[in-house]
């Protein structure tokens, strides 16, 4: 297995392979490659959300250490590497910078019988889904893309976006719902 992150070959989900190599082989070379790719992005994410340089680098360390420790919980059927690392960065940021706990659902938490696994239609090609999603996000009308980015990058719940942007709450909700409808199409909602 090649451990080079080969972004030129769209058929090779190499970031996912790197994560699996960390999970299965405690592979430090693979971990270095993941660090090179994700550390600057996690830092950019933290900086956009208002962390200063030092706090952003502490978050990077925390996230990458968690990647090493929890790599065995990564499942490429459920999420791309970027999605999985996004959820770690989001949760660690809430813990460290906002100093709140992040209530999360764990895999064993389902209250429904025989419902441990996600629906079968979601167990396909999470990484390929990401490229469709990227195209949909790129094509969003600017005002819809804006509410999306404010929520993910400015730590604003939708009602705060309304107040701070001087846009009526109903308009924020409408834009958000229109964006969500478009995003859902990337997940094969026509099926």
């Amino acid at each position, binding site marked *: 297995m090649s451990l080079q992150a080969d972004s030129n070959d769209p058929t090779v989900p190499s970031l996912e392979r790197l994560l699996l190599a960390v999970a299965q082989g405690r592979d*430090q070379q693979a*971990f270095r490659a993941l*660090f*090179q790719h*994700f*550390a*600057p*992005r*996690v*830092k*950019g*994410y933290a900086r*956009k959300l208002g962390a200063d340089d030092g706090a952003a*680098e502490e978050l990077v*360390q925390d996230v*990458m*250490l968690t990647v090493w*420790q*929890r790599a065995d919980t990564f499942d490429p059927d*459920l*999420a791309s590497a*970027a*999605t*999985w*690392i*996004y*959820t770690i960065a*989001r*949760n660690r940021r*809430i813990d460290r910078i906002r100093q*709140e*706990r*992040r*209530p999360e*659902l*764990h895999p*064993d*938490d*389902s*209250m*429904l019988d025989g*419902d441990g696994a*996600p*629906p079968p239609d*979601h167990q396909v090609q999470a990484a390929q889904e*990401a490229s469709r*999603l*990227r195209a949909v*996000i790129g094509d969003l009308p600017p005002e819809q893309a804006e509410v999306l980015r404010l*929520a*993910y*990058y400015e730590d*604003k*719940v939708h009602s*705060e976006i309304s107040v701070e942007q001087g846009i009526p709450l109903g308009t924020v909700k409408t834009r*958000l*719902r229109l964006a969500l409808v478009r*995003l*859902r199409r990337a*997940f094969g909602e026509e099926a």
Partner: protein
Amino acid sequence: MPAHHPAPELLFDYAAGSLREVQALLVASHLAYCAECRRRVAELEACGGVLLEEVAAEPVSDGLLDAVLAKLADAPAALPPQPATPPPNGILPGPLHRALGGSMGGALDGVDWVRIVPGIHLSGWSLGVGTASACLLRMAAGASVPAHRHTDHEMLLVLTGAFSDEFGRYRVGDVASYDPDTPHHAVADRDGECVCLLVQDKPLVFTGALGWLLNRGFRF
């Protein structure tokens, strides 16, 4: 499968990480009952993954990789134990079980209750962060919550039994959501008590003579 879900904006705020802890507790608890909302949250997290790939990368300091690699050597080979998972057949969903301290055995035996009016109790346990708070609400069979209005948002997640209000009927896993200044009153089904997770953003204002008394003594 639940019939009443959190608003799409709430799932979005939860996936984006902007939702505050108290409301996030209700959303995470609802997910334990709802495969459909779990799928929506997974999709919105995938959106977060795409945005993470798009974010303007910031170079990290030269020594950062080495600092992390040095810590890998010290990192425990075994993971720290995962937080408590509730026992099977418990009535508390995992996120709520953990918020209560993981000591309830998935049941409500260890919860203290404060009587508000006959048939209506609130838990001594509560979680307050910022202006929001969560506690448990217990309605005896057929009991109704006194009419009240409130100045901010209020949500209920049904954990056992069922109740009805002006807007519909809510069973286990369902979320009832009330906008500010919407008078409403919940009535538990006649055939059993109903326990809910109650989340609100501001103290409520009870209406009527009973409300005057309640407002002096209780937050609800």
